[in-house]
């Protein structure tokens, strides 16, 4: 006969007000197998816990049921108390008679009857509980950081400074991300590159950071503490070990007319190029699409059409035959920091939900540019050397109209959220413009000004009150080319008047969207993302940098639109989580994971298909002579998160979740 102890908590008045706790204890005490039943005012208090400990020792209990609050609240408390008295903690369970009973009912009689039922069900379950031991797994003290923008850089540096090793993967030829493209930063107007590039160099020189630029994550296997990541190193056509970054190859490259990605296509670059002078690593990449040699080879030319860069290279670093290669890195934690891209107003959109802006000419008007393009025009390192010129004819624009919320907060365009950074950078743009073109007029069409942040509201007020920006509350219905100018038809909803402005240039604050390919990366990592492709945090308030997969963390604008301070704070938070993980020699995991009864498993692998974490493996079962008997499912305990989807899916009921076996749940239900 089992010897279960039942401990009924009043939770002060929280439970006691609606539930007759003494009666619950009395009735439960009469159940077969219940050796001890008491009620107490505050079971989670020290004296309350002492009641549990004493009863285990004195009455020789082999199971404990605490009828109190939600197990989310105090299960650990009571399991620890049991453990301290020598009882396996997994023989202790909670019956929730607070959230599930006293808080939601008023009738004392009925609530008491329900509390008795709920507790009795758990007593029946605990009678079938088995002792479980926590799962211990070793930790690889290396982290993978995906994305080398400011968030990735900050996370990498913080982890490395904390003693961990870091592999930083960046898909572009250089780290730096969008921050390296910005001219100045709000709200202090300090130069973006001046504060960023020293950090980039720090990354490059750090003994514990391994930088893999121009690389992408190909596949992710394993689990917290023990990930195995396959990384594709894209072919640069330049041997990184030989190149010294002298730049000779670039200066001889005959194709100097390739639109520069770094300059948002407002400037030009060569076919073999370093994206910008402060690039890290300072090693060129050969763009095969625009290289005469590769274009010739694609057409089937017998002889190579060019080869000037190779001849010019004094270190024989250029290798036209280089192919993509793969490296595998073992890491214990992963930080996703892939950043954002800007929404394009063009006709072609990646998904049917997103829609372009026909009323703005689908982006076909040359002097209608986006915010990042304006950053390049304003930047001293940009294509115009920091002189504001319009792209069409190089004329200095005397009137610029800035439009906020392009795509953002517009369900009809498929983007309901606020992009957060636009209000601030538009204010910044108006100032940068005024600082460079003193007689220029900056108009801003806005919906609301959202300037919540330290020094932010002061900054926008400064743009309006001191720097002469003209803010008009309303939307623009149409942009139209009219000779030399762009006619901007809008509404000023505060005066109720329609407004028409002849603009020399229009700057669109287009919405912040996650990077393309984020979904496939998220699927490789088994982390969840929202309808827009932003990575979901594990809890919106309490676990903001964790994801749905243990050991994978998130930082920066891939989680939601973020400005630089937010991205950096998030990156440091993620780094702290990683370092916390690394401070353990071994990880202890809850043993409530799925196990497969291999002798009953038919090997249909529905479980493999439904497992959100990739925890189900195929295991070959052989007889004594080594002949293959069958292939059965096997759950990797390190990866399993105990969600139970496999258990629900298994047609032959050959999967059991430890601590929640069919038998336990069945008994609990039957007791009701």
């Amino acid at each position: 006969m089992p010897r279960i102890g039942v401990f009924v908590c009043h939770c002060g008045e929280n439970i006691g007000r609606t539930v007759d706790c003494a009666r619950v204890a009395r009735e439960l005490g009469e159940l077969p197998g219940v050796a001890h039943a008491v009620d107490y005012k505050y079971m989670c208090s020290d004296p309350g816990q002492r009641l549990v400990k004493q009863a285990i020792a004195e009455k020789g209990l082999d199971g404990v049921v605490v009828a109190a609050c939600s197990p989310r609240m105090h299960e650990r408390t009571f399991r620890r108390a049991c453990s301290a008295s020598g009882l396996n903690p997994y023989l202790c369970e909670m019956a929730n008679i607070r959230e599930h009973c006293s808080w939601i009912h008023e009738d004392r009689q009925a609530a008491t009857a329900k509390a008795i039922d709920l507790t009795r069900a758990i007593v029946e379950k605990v009678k079938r509980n088995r002792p479980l031991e926590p799962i211990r797994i070793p930790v690889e003290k290396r982290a993978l950081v995906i994305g080398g923008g400011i968030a990735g850089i900050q996370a990498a540096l913080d982890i490395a400074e904390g003693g961990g090793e870091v592999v930083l993967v960046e898909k572009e030829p250089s780290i730096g991300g969008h921050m390296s493209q910005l001219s100045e930063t709000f709200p202090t107007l300090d130069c973006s590159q001046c504060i960023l590039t020293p950090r980039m160099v720090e990354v490059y020189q750090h003994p514990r950071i391994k930088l893999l630029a121009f690389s992408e994550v190909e596949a992710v296997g394993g689990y917290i503490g023990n990930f195995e990541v396959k990384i594709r190193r894209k072919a640069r056509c330049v041997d990184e070990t030989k190149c010294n970054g002298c730049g000779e190859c670039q200066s001889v490259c005959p194709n100097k007319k390739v639109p520069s990605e770094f300059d948002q296509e407002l400037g030009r670059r060569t076919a073999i190029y370093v994206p910008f002078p402060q690039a890290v690593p300072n090693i060129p990449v050969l763009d095969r699409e625009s290289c005469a040699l590769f274009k010739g080879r694609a057409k089937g030319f017998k002889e190579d059409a060019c080869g000037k860069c190779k001849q010019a290279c004094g270190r024989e670093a250029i290798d036209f035959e280089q192919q993509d290669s793969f490296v595998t890195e073992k890491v214990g934690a992963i930080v996703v920091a892939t950043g954002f891209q800007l929404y394009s107003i063009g006709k072609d959109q990646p998904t049917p939900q997103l829609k372009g802006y026909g009323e703005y000419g689908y982006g076909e008007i040359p002097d209608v540019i986006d915010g990042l393009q304006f950053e390049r025009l304003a930047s001293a390192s940009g294509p115009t050397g920091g002189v504001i010129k319009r792209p069409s004819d190089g004329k200095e624009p005397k009137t610029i109209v800035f439009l906020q919320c392009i795509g953002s907060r517009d369900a009809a365009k498929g983007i309901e959220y606020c992009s957060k950074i636009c209000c601030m950078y538009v204010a910044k743009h108006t100032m940068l413009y005024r600082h460079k073109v003193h007689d220029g007029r900056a108009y801003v069409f806005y919906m609301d000004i959202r300037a919540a942040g330290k020094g932010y509201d002061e900054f926008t007020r400064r743009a309006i009150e001191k720097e002469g920006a003209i803010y008009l509350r309303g939307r623009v219905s149409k942009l139209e080319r009219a000779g030399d100018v762009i006619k901007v038809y809008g509404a000023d909803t505060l005066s109720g008047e329609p407004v028409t402005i002849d603009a020399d240039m229009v700057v669109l604050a287009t919405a912040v969207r996650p990077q393309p390919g984020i979904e496939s990366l998220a699927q490789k990592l088994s982390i969840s993302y929202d309808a827009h492709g932003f990575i979901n945090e594990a809890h919106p308030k309490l676990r903001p940098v964790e994801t749905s997969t243990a050991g994978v963390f998130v930082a920066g604008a891939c989680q939601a639109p973020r400005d630089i301070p937010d991205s950096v704070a998030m990156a440091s938070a993620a780094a702290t989580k990683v370092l916390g993980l690394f401070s353990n020699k071994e990880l202890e995991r809850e043993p409530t994971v799925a196990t497969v009864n291999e002798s009953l498993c038919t090997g249909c692998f529905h479980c493999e298909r439904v497992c959100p974490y990739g925890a189900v493996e195929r295991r070959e079962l052989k007889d004594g002579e080594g002949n293959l008997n069958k292939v059965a499912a096997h759950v990797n305990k390190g990866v399993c998160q105990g969600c139970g989807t496999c258990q629900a899916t298994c047609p032959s009921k050959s999967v059991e979740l430890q601590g929640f076996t069919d038998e336990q749940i069945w008994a609990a239900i039957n007791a009701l």
Partner: protein
Amino acid sequence: MKELRQIAAKLLTDGAVKVVIGWEEGPRGARAAFVTRPEDAERLIFDARCVQNLATYLSPRRRHVVGLGKAAVVAKPCDAKAIAGLIRESQVKREDVVILGVRCGGVVREPTMPASLTAETVADRCGICETREPTLYDHLIGEPQPEPPRVTRREEQIAALMQKTPQERFAFWSQQLERCIRCHACREVCPMCFCEQCVADKTRPVWIESSSHPRANFAWQMTRVMHQAGRCVDCGECERACPVGIPLNLLTRYTAQSVEKRFGHKPSDDPSIAAPIGTFRSDDSQEFIR
């Protein structure tokens, strides 16, 4: 028929397979045949009486058949769907079976009936079947076949049942399932029921009581049909095997209709098309979540 026998004999002579699973003339019409010697290939037949779904003999649960060695199996289009199901769910490897696909113009309701197809004799499922030949095969045998007589009596019966109130439907099924003797013939004949241990045989806990009383019978059939949702190939064998004549096909067919309506999925003989169970698509219909 000649072509079928020749191919079967050659496969056996060459040692490409150890057994050819097909149909032969039996004392009560067409029946399953397991041909292991080339000279016995003469026994094989194929006509409108070849009702049985032979894919069921490929299931690893049939140890006596598996023990014979690599098999070739004669497959009508609906049988090919079951073979695809077994491949899809890792029960059979594609390279471990030779599929002798036969062009099919429908079959009669029972293998004991004469091989002439009329609106009265044609099997209910063939009355709406659109597939005249399988796409999953190694050899495709026979002349192109005409469409079987079109009958919709089963669909009408389902529609009529769905017109009734839930109480009336419950009464109808109570009456039907009262007769169930829990012989599990529906399970044993089914090509897609291949679990080593059926949930109905589990004892810890007893999910489904094994005695035959209404509650247990309901639990059994509901479980069986739900396990077949999106997997059933509509071969009709469960109903044909039922010794007490419960119209089980109405249940499986209605489930298939629901799966098609909800998930746009029809049973297919392409093993690479995933069944809805265990498949998540972001555009899955979710109107049941309120």
